[in-house]
């Protein structure tokens, strides 16, 4: 399946290649947007993990030391 989600009827790879060549700028922009969004998601995931870790350390210090 190509980035445009439109594989050709015959399933041949050239169809997808042509699709990429025909409108590379559109495909490219979308991929960059997706990549940056994914990286932003990682930043948020890191914050969540750090917050959970901080809570665990506080609980450990208060109740299990």
């Amino acid at each position, binding site marked *: 399946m190509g980035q445009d989600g439109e594989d050709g009827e015959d399933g041949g790879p050239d169809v997808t290649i042509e699709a990429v060549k025909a409108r590379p700028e559109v495909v490219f922009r979308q991929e960059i947007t997706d990549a*940056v969004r994914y990286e932003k998601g990682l930043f948020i995931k890191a914050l969540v993990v750090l917050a959970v870790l901080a809570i665990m350390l506080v609980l450990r210090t208060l109740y299990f030391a």
Partner: protein
Amino acid sequence: MGHGFVLGGQWFLIVLVMLGAVPEVAASWQFLLVAGHFWRNDYDVCAPVFPRTAVLIPAWNEAAVIGASIDRLMSLEYPRDALRVYLVDDASTDETPQVAAAKEVQYPGSVIHLRREKGGQGKAHTLNHGLAVILGDEWMEALLITDADVIFQADSLRKMTRHLADPRVGAVTAYIKEGSRPGNYMTRFIGYEYITAQAARRGQNVLGATACLAGGAQLHTRANLLALGGRIDTTSLAEDTFTTFQTQLNGRRVVFEPHAIVWAEEPGSIIGLWKQRLRWARGNVQVTKRYRKLWFRPRRGHRLGSVTFGVFWFCLFLQPIFMIVSSFSLVTLYFASYAGAWRAFHILWITNAATYFFITAFALLIDPPIARHTWRQGMMFPGVVNLGIVMYTCVPPLFRDLAHGAFAASHFSPDHAWLTGGILFIYAWPAASMPAAYLAKVAEPHRFGRFLSPLVVYIVGYGSLLCACTFASYVKELRGAEMKWDKTEKTGKMVVPT
């Protein structure tokens, strides 16, 4: 005076004990950099470019995998007239030449089969044979070096080439995933380890210094190859790391593209892993020695000499030494100051517990599809014993109650000697886990090893197994052992998502 000396000695030992946490803290630091990839990445200078790309595949007895790899390369979402595959057959004795010849006929003008009649000199020599041909004409603008078993996802190459729009970039690498399915415990450990390795590469993107291009997916510009002398270093077992360093020393950037995904088959046994990692670790020893004037000396033009990069490199390179020094110091401190040792032990292991939680949780969140397949191995990465120590230091009352209950139920009352032995065992464990991991490798070929070796790996930890490999590499290099290219056997057991 005497008291001060003793106190100073104890503090010195406590510092040495804490060295055991340094590699984990450095790894956490590297993971924190991953979060910074949102701000500091190369996407703003990317563009949709499709340079004429030659794919160079060194192959020795790869008949089981090479046909599928070529088919996948030929179906990449990349202009067909801008893609050629050069297969360098390193005097294979299996069906590789026949498979290559058939692919040459199937893809006329796109697949080129080169053969070395005298092979066995190693991957770098095989690559150089192909490079001489490829650089012989002007067609190639970019070169993708890969391995015979590596399967590229359809969009991976163009996601790599988009970085070549930036003229400062000399090389680009991709995200390698372990693709054996259903796989076994070992391939799952490696699958999880590769999430952490690619996270480290993301961190290195942020830092601006890359330790190593993935050997199975390295894209170079023609200019970069020419600046490297048009050939790959043949004097070490880590030709890809040398290439990576030299690219950056020549003033070009090396970029990791985490969204370009390729799949590789990795060893499914301890012996296979040991061969592969010993080669890599010996290569790292050679790199460390070769670039000894580079470390911790910041320079203009590259960041390999930065303090941060040096810390990352040496924390990995010297991890077995850190573990041995920490354990030895803790045991010594036990005899000098029981209370001091107990306190140092707790600080060390609470630090280890915090870094373990952060790295494991974040790594599993970085790549959820792989995490679903490898989360058990991710959690068991440090091994049962280390996890027990982590749990004890995090929740001591729970363990005390459990221990008392167990002793009461079994009518066993441990005396002073038992307690001393137990404490010393736990203190010495980080160092002792390495020879224990080595025993798993020794046992594997035997009849009982099939069951025992995986059990031992789960008990001592995959991390300790890797540290044992690294320690073995020191020994091999100190002895000046022969540089033997032990190829990782590939069987074509990968199942790649489409």
